[in-house]
Structure formats: C-alpha cells, structure tokens
C-alpha cells in the first residue's frame, strides 16, 4: 500500500499563446505549474478544484496526452516524462483514462464491442476468439449484457455509456486509471452506482486511481487522500478525512463551505464563506500566492513571495503564508 506507484515531481505544462505575424510566443498559459505528489499502489488520490484550475490538464499530462513542459513523471521507478510515443506504447497498457463526458467520448460509429476491443487490437494482445470473450467478460463486469456488444453508443443512457467507458479502460488490464470527472454528467442515483462499481473494481483488480472531480463530497467519499488545486498549483494535500475536518488553506476552507448540504437544518446553521470573484486567468499569473486577491487573510507577503508547499505533519501539505 505504501509503495509509490506514481511520483510526480515539479510537473509543468505551459501552453504557448502565439501572437503577431511571425507567430511569436507572446505569453504562456501556465495550466499546471510545478505540481508534485505521489500516488501509492492501490490508493485513490482525489484532485479537486474549480474549472480552469488545471486538474484535467494535470491528469492528461500524466498520461502524456499532453507533452509535459518540464518535470518528472516517475511510474514504477521509470521517468516517462520524456518518452516518445513508441516508448509510451507499453505504458499505455498500464495507464488508462475514463473521460468526463460519456456522450462525447465514445465514437458514435463504432459498436460497443469495437470500442472496448480497440485497445486490445492496438496492442495486439489477443486473437479474435479471446478478444470476443474478453469483451463479453468486461461487459458483464461493468453490469451490461453480452448482447450489448453489437449495439451503438446512442442506444445507451448516460450511466450505461460511462460503464462502457470504464469497460474500455479495463480492456488492457491496466494498473492505474485516471478518472476525469467520471460522474459529473450523471444523475445522483446513477452516480452512486458508478462510484460503487469503481470501488469494487479497485478492490478486485488492485487498481490505483487518480480521481479528478469538482464535487468535493463524492471525492472525499472515494479517495484516501485529496489534493486541492488552484490556478495550476497544488495548494493543499492531505488524508481525505483530515482535509475535511481540518482544512488549512483558506481556499480549501471556502471550497468546503460551498458544498450544498442535503439537510435543511444543517444548511441553515452553516456559515458560508462565499468567495468573491472568479478564478483569475492563468496567463502570466502575478507573482506571489495566486489566491491572494480572493483570500480573506491576504497579507503583504502574499503578493511578494510564493508560499512553499510544506508538510504540516502527518502528510498534510499546504502552500500558504499563514502557516
């Protein structure tokens, strides 16, 4: 459990913004800026933050759908950050992804069987008969019927499509799955079905998850540890119960207080920290702490110096000048 499967060290992903006649790079959009964390074997690490904070880019960079600008991605002891596509092929079997939008992430012109089998074909893992069996097995595993293999995605509901997406990710027997907002497009009752299934799969197959979402209560439920991102930076990382009961960063505190509580009395009692304004642009962000202009506790030092991401004990990391 405590052996790190994945170590992210100072990961950066900058997108150049080109301007003018000669396409000169005028600015950089710093989507992920110096993020470090580890994920242990068999663990679920949650990653939360508002849209635009870089959590999805972070996930996509780890799996190298985006080329990292700088930093290390150490998977099982090997730094894959600079690997070519050819070298990556082997690792793509080990790392898979479940995407956010079950309506857009399945090719409408492929049958469900072909969608799930595509990765098996790419990696030339099995013969036709074995492939067929594997697809049947996977469909049953995610709670669909064997005959669904010959149908097309439009014949399925959102929850069923997300199951197809999960079956596709499982096809090559991965060790590590990045779940990028896998439930945010689903109804509440269906969300619980999918989350339970992800948990079952994890315990049965020994999977490791990076769970990206903006729904804090669901992330807390599924994750062992949770990281909070703000404007390309990891601002806090802790055990999920610890993060919920003792949030240190003012941004985490505000995020937690914004969760709507399905309980009218609790909801009436609760004091909300309503954050003013919105997440600023990540294009050439100002120096210092990136949260300072929305922070209730901002001090002069926050505009001058960038806070260090430091351990407050027990693996509770925070990047804030208050501590």
């Amino acid at each position, binding site marked *: 459990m405590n052996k790190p499967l994945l170590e992210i060290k100072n990961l950066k992903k900058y997108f150049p913004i080109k301007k003018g006649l000669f396409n000169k790079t005028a600015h950089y959009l710093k989507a992920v800026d110096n993020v470090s964390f580890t994920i242990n074997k068999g663990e679920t690490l949650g990653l939360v933050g*508002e*849209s635009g904070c870089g959590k999805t880019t972070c996930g996509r960079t780890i799996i190298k759908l985006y080329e990292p600008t700088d930093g290390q991605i150490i998977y099982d002891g090997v730094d894959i950050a600079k690997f070519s596509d050819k070298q990556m092929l082997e690792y793509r079997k080990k790392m898979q992804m479940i995407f956010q939008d079950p309506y857009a992430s399945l090719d409408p012109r492929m049958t469900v069987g072909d969608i799930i089998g595509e990765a098996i074909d790419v990696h030339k893992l099995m013969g036709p008969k074995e492939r067929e069996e594997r697809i049947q097995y996977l469909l049953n595993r995610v709670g669909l019927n064997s005959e669904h293999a010959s149908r097309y995605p439009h014949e399925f*509901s*959102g*929850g*069923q499509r997300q199951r197809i997406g999960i079956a596709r990710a499982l096809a090559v027997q991965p060790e590590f799955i990045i779940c990028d907002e896998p439930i945010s497009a689903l*109804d*509440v*009752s*269906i*969300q*619980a*079905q999918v*989350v*339970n299934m992800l*948990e079952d799969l994890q315990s049965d197959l020994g999977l490791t998850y990076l769970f990206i979402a*903006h*729904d*804090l*209560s*669901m992330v*807390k*439920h599924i994750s062992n540890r949770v990281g909070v991102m703000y404007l390309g930076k990891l601002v806090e990382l802790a055990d999920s*119960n610890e993060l*919920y*009961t003792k949030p240190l960063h003012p941004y985490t505190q*505000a*995020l*937690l*207080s*914004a*969760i*709507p*509580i*399905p*309980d*009218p009395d609790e*909801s*009436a009692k609760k004091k*909300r920290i*309503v*954050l003013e304004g*919105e997440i600023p642009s990540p294009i050439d962000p100002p120096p210092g702490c990136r949260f300072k202009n929305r922070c209730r506790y901002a001090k002069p030092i926050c505009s001058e110096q960038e806070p260090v991401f430091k351990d407050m004990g027990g693996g509770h990391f925070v990047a804030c000048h208050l501590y």
Partner: protein
Amino acid sequence: MERLLEIKNLRTSFFTHVGEVQAVRGVSFHLDKGEAIGIVGESGSGKSITMMSVMRLLADNGKIVEGEILFEGRDLAKLPENEMQKVRGNEIGMIFQDPMTSLNPVLTVGDQLMEPLIKHKKMSKEEAFNRAVHMLELVGIPSPKSRMSQYPHEFSGGMRQRVMIAMALACEPKLLIADEPTTALDVTIQAQILELMKDLKQKINTSIILITHDLGVVADLCSRINVMYGGLIAETGTTRDIFYNPKHPYTWGLLNSVPNPKNLVKERLKPIDGQPPDLLKPPAGCPFAPRCQYAMRICMTQRPPLFEIGEGHKAACWLNHKDAPKVEAPIRRGDL
C-alpha cells in the same frame, strides 16, 4: 397567501415516430406569491417538461394533452400564442441550465438584456439601457456599463449565468423558473448564484420554481419540494417533511445516494439500482416499482394515489396505505 400558479392534472406528451412518449402523466401542484419551491427528480422524470409546458416552450411534436395551468387565474394551457408572448419573459422569466448555449452569441449582452424591456415594457432605448445596467449591477457584475457592449463569449460561465438571471428578472416577473441553474457551474460559483437568488427573492419578491436533481441545492432555497418520478409526483411536502420524514422509497433512495461528507468512516453508497422507466410504454402500476425493494404485488398493477401524510405532505406509495406492512425508512441521516 395568494396563489400565483396552480397546475391541475397536467399531462404532456411527445408524439414521435415510434409512438406517444408520455413525459408528464398527471401532475398537480401550486405555488404561492413570494414562495420558492423545488422540483427534484432525475433525467426523464418530467420535471423540465412540466415547466416547459408552463412556458409553452415545448418542441413541435410536444403537446399539452390535458390539464390546466392557472397563472393568476388565467389558463396558460389554452392561451393563444400572441397572448403567451406577453407572458413569457414579462410575467414569467426563465433561466436555463446551460449558460453557454442559451445566450445569443452574435448579439451583445446589452442588446439581449434590453430586448425584453423594449418589447414588453415599451421603454425607450435610453431607459432600457439604464435599466439593463442596473440589472447587471444587481446580479453583481463589475463595471456593468462597459460589460453592456460585450458579447457572451467574453463572459465566464458564472458571469453568463448572472446575465441570464439579470435578463430573466429585467421585467420584474412574478415568477422565475430556474431549470438546473447551477448544474454546469463550480461549487464556489454555485454558492454565489444561490446566494444571489435568495437575495433577489427578498429584494424583488419574485416567486421561484427551482428544478434540480441536487437535493443539497433545494435544501437551502426552497420551502416546499415536489419529488417527481416517471412523469408523476412521487412525494410532495415542506422541505423539512422531505428531508426528515420522507415517505416514498424513491425519496429515500435519493437521500441515500449522496455521500454525507460528515461521515468519517467510509460507508458504501446505496444507489438506486436499475434505470428510470421508459415513458413510451409507461408501467401500469407505480413507475418506481421495478426499482423499489419494498414493491408489493399491488405496486405492479395499480398506480398509487397520493396518500395524505400530514398537512400538505403527500406521498404516492402503497406503503402508506393503512393495511400495508410498516416499513422503517432506511435513512442514514438519523445516525449522524
């Protein structure tokens, strides 16, 4: 309290090439002046179609088959289209789910805000401009004057939803219908928008109908809740009734399928198994029966009436019949 809206036995269907899809199958509820109520249910429960029927914004193949929609005594279901146009945006405002697609991308935000004012309130351009600026200010958009000449793509998601709210409220409607107004937004922005709606409800005394699938959102804003399932009302009552004394297994399921962040011991979620019913061939009995773990024989064959539980609290479930076996509501809320 004065009644603002009363829906009586509304039935709305869509006539498709494969047959009649009975989206709303006999829904009745009411709304008083100055009140905020919630309609909760999953996709396909008919919650949006009920409100689209009120606005008479159904697709071409959709039709109100039966029922009355009494808005201050007038039956909107039978109002001719030109009369209806005077109601829409003027007396009833609506906020849609997706702020990214519900604004016109080729018109400036100012033009879109001024349009209903000029059309309905017969304001001059200058008056409408000032009023629009005031509305943007009211919904908390910084430097509203310069924002007037910008296009929707220059606004973020949360800001667009504010513009939508400003537009819906510009003519001071008596009723605001908000269809999943915060579903596409981040939690922090969601909190801002809900706070804003609460605030505006007090300031301009608009009645609100909030459609959502998120029980957390209604808990805060609404005084009464209608839970819908399969085109019918499953349970109706005050917010406290629904949260603390729910009497319908579907409501139990909804309450149980969200994790309680206060729980420090990891507990398995209890989802509602199965899929919502196919409204092309709606079941004869209770629409929830195939997914209900308490289903009895009668549930499959006969649709349950709305049993009276308490004052204004009703549940359409046979378990509330006097001869039914007593079932303890499996709500985890008690062990907090």
